[in-house]
């Protein structure tokens, strides 16, 4: 069984690496934002620079998780190849695990440019232990976005998934305080912010990297979003299976 998971992960990774546009989109935008906003405005303040680096990593990882999965799942569903893969002797697990593992790999690769900019051009500081903790928080915080990506991918056509995942992504990232620190957000945004999943994920990363105490509401909401997105993704998956394979 593990060899099958490996085969599917390898297959998914090869597809993504050979057409690296998704990988570039996931890593370039946050790296450019780092250069344009974080380096000139917060680069000299170690605390702010570290927090902003965490936000930008989450921004990139979120886009790989949400947009990346929504598009790859929606696209696979439209390919006749998908039907062939269903005839191979494997249950749904290896394919699912392959998707998740390859998305995680792409997510982690996409944060590298941000980390490099932070390390070379800002005063952001971190210990190796906190960095590892921060990456773990990043993965945990991205779970609901992977699930939302799966939900959209199983529900929508490729073109619709392309539009909807972007429309969902940007407001959620902004409301979560990833592009501007929460303290500087306008009042009404700050009122909504604790209830979007990106805020909870960001709080988790800030806590892991700099030891600040996360707010309870964003963390509870993150858990609620994760459970809700899991239910929605499972529903969309079953609906799609029922339509095409019963």
């Amino acid at each position, binding site marked *: 069984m593990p060899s099958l998971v490996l*085969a599917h992960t*390898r297959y998914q990774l090869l597809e993504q690496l050979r057409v690296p546009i998704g990988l570039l989109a996931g890593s370039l935008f946050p790296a450019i934002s780092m250069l344009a906003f974080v380096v000139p405005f917060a680069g000299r303040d170690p605390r702010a620079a570290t927090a902003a680096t965490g936000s930008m990593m989450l921004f990139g990882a979120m886009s790989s998780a949400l947009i990346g999965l929504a598009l790859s799942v929606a696209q696979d569903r439209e390919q006749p190849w998908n039907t*062939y893969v269903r005839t191979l002797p494997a249950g749904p697990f290896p394919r699912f695990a392959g998707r998740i593992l390859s998305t995680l790999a792409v997510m982690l690769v996409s944060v590298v440019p941000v980390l490099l900019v932070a390390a070379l051009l800002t005063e952001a500081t971190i210990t190796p232990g906190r960095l590892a903790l921060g990456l773990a928080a990043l993965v945990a915080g991205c779970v609901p976005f992977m699930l939302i990506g799966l939900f959209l991918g199983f529900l929508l056509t490729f073109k619709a998934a392309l539009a909807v995942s972007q429309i969902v992504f940007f407001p959620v990232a902004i409301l979560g305080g990833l592009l501007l620190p929460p303290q500087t957000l306008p009042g009404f945004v700050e009122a909504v912010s604790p209830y979007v999943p990106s805020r909870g994920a960001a709080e988790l990363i800030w806590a892991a990297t700099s030891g600040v105490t996360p707010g309870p509401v964003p963390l509870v909401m993150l858990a609620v979003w994760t459970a809700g997105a899991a239910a929605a993704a499972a529903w969309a998956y079953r609906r799609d299976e029922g339509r095409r394979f019963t």
Partner: protein
Amino acid sequence: MTVLARAVEASRRYGDVLALDRVSLDIRAGELVGLLGPNGAGKSTLINLFAGLRRPTSGTVELLGGSPADPVTRRAIGVTPQETGLPESLRVGEIVAFAAAHYPRPADRDELLARFGLDGLVRRQVGGLSGGQRRRLAVALAFAGDPRLVFLDEPTTGLDVEARRALWDGVRAFHEAGGTVLLTSHYLEEIEALAERVVVVGEGRVLADDTVRAIRETVGVRRVSLVADDLPELPGVSGVERSDGRIHLVTPDSDRLVTALVLSGVPFSGLEIRPATLEEAFLAITARRTEPSDETRGAGPSDETKERSHA
């Protein structure tokens, strides 16, 4: 002989469309069976049921006594993907390795590629293959797991003669080594070249299940086309159609028909005789079968009982 795949009274409905109507069929080990029928006859639906992609609405479908929905059962089969859907960015070797990873005893990669004339292309990306190479790769994938039973759905549509023959050789080699094949095709020629047994399906039902020779005689109808004002009663006409001012007659015996036409003294012009297309032949078979079809259906279960008592 061991039955590798069996459908018993299998029906499949898509909404209001009845794609398969109580089909019973046994594929035994070592057979090379051709599944012949016009588009929409139910060929692909039947293969989808055997491959575990769809479940029958009623009746049962089995692979080696198990359910096609069970991945372990599917280790014994190989299926061809549509060549248009092969992942463009992957290399030939990577795709073969991916398919092979699903099977406990996969075929040797290089031997497999050589069998389908793809040697030397291991590192080529699918996007850079010609149409014929893609098609051969798609067919080769069905053999990647060294299966006992292979389903080939329209394997050579759109291939040139040479590529088609190369592919046929690959299929024959598999069969000669003891492999079992279920092959669908539009082309009577392809079925004739490969299959020993032919199952003709139309409108979701099995219309005939016999040796290639017997089916060819049934299907070997001709189309006699001419211009005439009015025709007398002619012998052996199984279908009449009028279009563009011409009369088209479908008949199993064009010689007798033309002789009778000439002897009748009726004036006519522009006489043309050509083999009927498969489509026309099927219409002829279907028309002939409409009346005794209840009888044929009645015979189905009794055949099955006979086979069961053998087993």
